[in-house]
């Protein structure tokens, strides 16, 4: 049973009527490609999510692209230090639109337990973050929950609206 049979049965000769926006959003959320950006301990749980026990490829996301040009999603997994910050911003700037950011873990969201001279207290001071996944580190299922909520958020976007040419506002690069 494939898409054509389903469409043939339910929708009369395989014609589907939908809005352009829904179709674009559906295509975008179904194949989000993350950029490899594991910084610290949270990266291990992210890798665990991509491997056989929790299998991220069910959602079309098992290709972790190293090159930011080919990636849509940056999962900031781990502590961002002040020395690493220019690299993070440069990679974000190199990613092509549309792009989303998930702050995974306590360190990326707010600095975590490291309140010191060398740690950025939350990556949202420098980047627009779409989803925060709390935990230290969050379980792979928790990150998956965050990704599914990001899918719901993407489905609600309006990509053809003229004022949405840039994904999100205040981005101090």
């Amino acid at each position: 049973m494939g898409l054509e049979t389903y469409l043939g049965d339910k929708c009369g000769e395989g014609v589907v009527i939908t809005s352009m926006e829904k179709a674009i959003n559906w295509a975008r959320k179904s194949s989000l490609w993350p950029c490899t950006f594991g910084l610290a301990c949270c990266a291990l749980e992210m890798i665990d999510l991509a491997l056989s026990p929790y299998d991220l490829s069910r959602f079309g996301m098992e290709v972790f692209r190293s090159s930011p040009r080919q990636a849509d999603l940056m999962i900031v997994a781990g502590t961002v230090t002040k020395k690493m910050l220019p690299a993070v911003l440069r990679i974000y700037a190199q990613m092509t639109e549309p792009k989303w950011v998930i702050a995974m873990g306590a360190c990326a969201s707010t600095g975590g337990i490291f309140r010191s001279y060398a740690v950025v207290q939350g990556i949202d001071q420098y980047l627009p973050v779409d989803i925060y996944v709390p935990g230290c580190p969050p379980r792979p299922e928790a990150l998956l929950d965050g990704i599914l909520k990001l899918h719901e958020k993407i489905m609600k976007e309006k990509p053809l609206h003229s004022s949405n040419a840039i994904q999100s506002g205040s981005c101090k690069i």
Partner: protein
Amino acid sequence: MAEPGIQIIAEVRERGETETMEINMGPQHPSTHGVFRAVVELDGETVVKVVPHLGYLHRGIEKIAENRTYHQIIPLTDRLDYMAGASNNLGYCLAVEKLMGIEAPPRAQFIRVIITELSRISSHLFWAGATAHDLGAMTPFFYMVREREQILFFLEMITGARLTPSFFRIGGVAMDLPPEFHDECMKFVKAFPPRVDEYEALLTENIIWKSRTKGVGYLSAEDCIGLGVSGPMARAAGINWDLRKNQPYSSYDKFDFKAAVYNGCDAYDRYRVRMMEIRQSNEIIRQALEGVPEGDYSITMKGALKPPAGEVYMAIEAPRGELGFYIISDGTVQPFRMKIRAPTFVNLQSLAKMSEGKLFSDMVAALASVDLVLAEVDR
């Protein structure tokens, strides 16, 4: 293998027709196992010079520790070598217990050994899978995480967390083992050795694996001692030194196991050392499960923890080498100074010696065999 090519390059260079190229590897890179940056000067495919740049994950843990009480530092130590969080906890708790002149009760020591060895197996499995993945063999990784998930399930059953247990306390452990743990873990321990045979069948005699790791990342025993290299890297060079056997701590002298020592000094023998350590750790867990003594799981301590003024250095055998904690106490509830001797920080110094003059892809294999965890390097 590369000899004729290098000779041609040398002749061309004598005629003044080549120049070297400097490339930047990292800090975001799929093969650097974390935020490590190396500026590599290449002459064709041959590495002329490697300059590592660290510090991209420096979080100031030592400074934070000077502003926390002794128990509040335990979660901080978890995040040092995050692949085997329990062994950092063990090193730190043993150091503070040495400072105070106390010892954990026998039951707590056995529980600590079980959890530390489970973490060691999990760390080595992940290392083996990730290294194989780096060198192109993707299959073993997907199978090794199967066992690793089982181990993380046990860690969660006992401690409540998969990766960062924070389970040990000064004077013992946080709580007793759950009743169902013993039988479940025994089942795992009995079923594990055939699985390790499967993984070794995929890699050990594999002709591609051998040609990519034999002779690669060569570091002689003299160089190992001079550069302060410890752990599986040193044991692969024939140095028979394992702190669990030579300076035993936490009841390790009650278990019968062998230190894994080979003589090849290369990445292939480092792999064989770690696989043997996985088997030996499994054996230690089996013996510990069979012989856990009854009794308290922790010493009861009244009031705030104030060690006497003084300084100690306590080293344990972490999965990566000698993990040392140098703690100076001034008699208050916070340590005056805490220095963490991270094994990977020292082992990484050998990268230049292992890679200069060799091929660039061999440098990737040598870097993988160092077993890099940047959180420990940068603290």
